[in-house]
């Protein structure tokens, strides 16, 4: 199913118009980067794609399995990193725990699987959130500035895992960094707004 927005209108509190007759069609696979200034509506677009906001009018076509990595990691504070990842998996407990451990190790979190999020550093928590998103095996992966808390080395490691594991899905990445946009994406959409408009589209 193609991922697209057709003539979407959206406003917060019926006053602040963010999207006005906005249409966009995404490719089926690859990494698309949404690049633009703060407050232009990038996160709103992501929230619409995730089904967390409903458009006032128009249509959003999205797959059922959509994962989101938010700016803040949103891990369950009372569960360990392993259980946070296992929470999005289905199956016997033992199996999901092993699977979760596997995903955490991919993000260089070996030894921290059974640690509560509060005892992990910001970067480790963000990596746990990325592991959870990939473990969900989504068809669409939405990343809202996921590397902002990471140092360059960890960012490159995460990007590598994401590129390696994400070949069969569409990844939409929101970033403020031109460098990140160039490094990790196949296509860059430069946005402006509100109301949100695509000012340029470049394929790398």
């Amino acid at each position, binding site marked *: 199913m193609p991922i697209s927005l057709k003539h979407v209108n959206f406003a917060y509190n019926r006053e602040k118009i963010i999207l006005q007759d906005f249409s966009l069609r995404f490719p089926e696979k690859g990494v698309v980067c949404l690049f633009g200034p703060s407050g232009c509506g990038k996160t709103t677009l992501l929230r619409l794609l995730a*089904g967390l906001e409903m458009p006032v009018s128009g249509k959003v076509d999205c797959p059922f399995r*959509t994962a989101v990595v938010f700016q803040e990691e*949103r891990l369950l*504070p*009372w569960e360990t990193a392993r259980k946070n990842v296992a*929470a999005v998996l289905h199956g016997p407990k033992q199996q999901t725990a092993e699977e979760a451990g596997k995903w955490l190790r991919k993000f260089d979190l070996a030894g921290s699987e059974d640690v509560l999020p*509060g005892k992990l550093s910001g970067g480790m928590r963000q990596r746990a959130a990325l592991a959870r998103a990939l473990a969900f095996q989504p068809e669409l992966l939405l990343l809202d500035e996921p590397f902002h808390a990471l140092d360059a080395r960890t960012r490159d490691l995460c990007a590598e895992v994401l590129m390696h594991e994400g070949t069969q899905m569409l990844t939409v990445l929101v970033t403020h960094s031109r460098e990140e946009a160039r490094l990790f994406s196949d296509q860059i959409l430069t946005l402006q707004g509100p109301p949100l408009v695509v000012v340029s589209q470049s394929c790398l």
Partner: protein
Amino acid sequence: MMDFITKNKQNLKQGTQQPRLTYWVISAAVWLTVWQVLAGAVHEEILLVSPLCVFRRLCQLIFVGSFWLTIVSSMGRILLGFFLGMGIGTLLAVLTNQSRLCYAVFYPIISIINATPVASFIILALVWLSTAKVPVLTSCLIVMPSFWRNVSNGISETDSDLLEMAQVYRFGRRRTWMQVYIPSVLPYFSAACSTGIGMAWKAGVAAEVLADTHLSIGGNLYDAKIYLETPDLFAWTAAIVLLSILLEKGLVRLIQMPVKKLYAGEKRCQ
């Protein structure tokens, strides 16, 4: 330098604990002396009995089989009422948070129950129920609004970011409740238990006094008052206070155990 700081911190820790216990002992000694002096000044056991006499009477009572039977019966009734109030209050909190209609239906009733004086409950319950059931109903009605309010607050204060995460990852209703709502509500629930158990205990004993329930602490208090047995009155009151403290500490500790475990790692690394 670091060694010096660590040692100083340890000394401070020890220092803050030791005076606390000493202060408690001093405080108890001061008030017991005041009580003893007052009892000596009044010199009428029927009006004010001395602490020594109360202690002696309490020691006599604890070796009588019916004392323990009375305590177990009273505790059973009051705890039954407390747990009923806990269950009903929690269930109503869930219902009123899920449905506006439920909120509209139950909110006025809960508000009325919350505003009604304990004595009115007891008198009304005496009209409708047997004397053994009056403390149960009274304890239940006293704690129910407290549980409703606290659990409702817990539900509405649940982190909306976590709820969005649960929505994105298709947790479903059951998983969202088990993994997001219940752990979020637990501290509020625990707070309701801490305040509720004391309220239930006091209201339950008051109901036993007014209902003159058979084999009850309140019934014994009532008898002591009728027969002007002041040492008994004080001894039973001392038993009530001790039991209230024990019950509150025990139950609260029991309920706070999972809460402490749950939030042990929530403090973020700096």
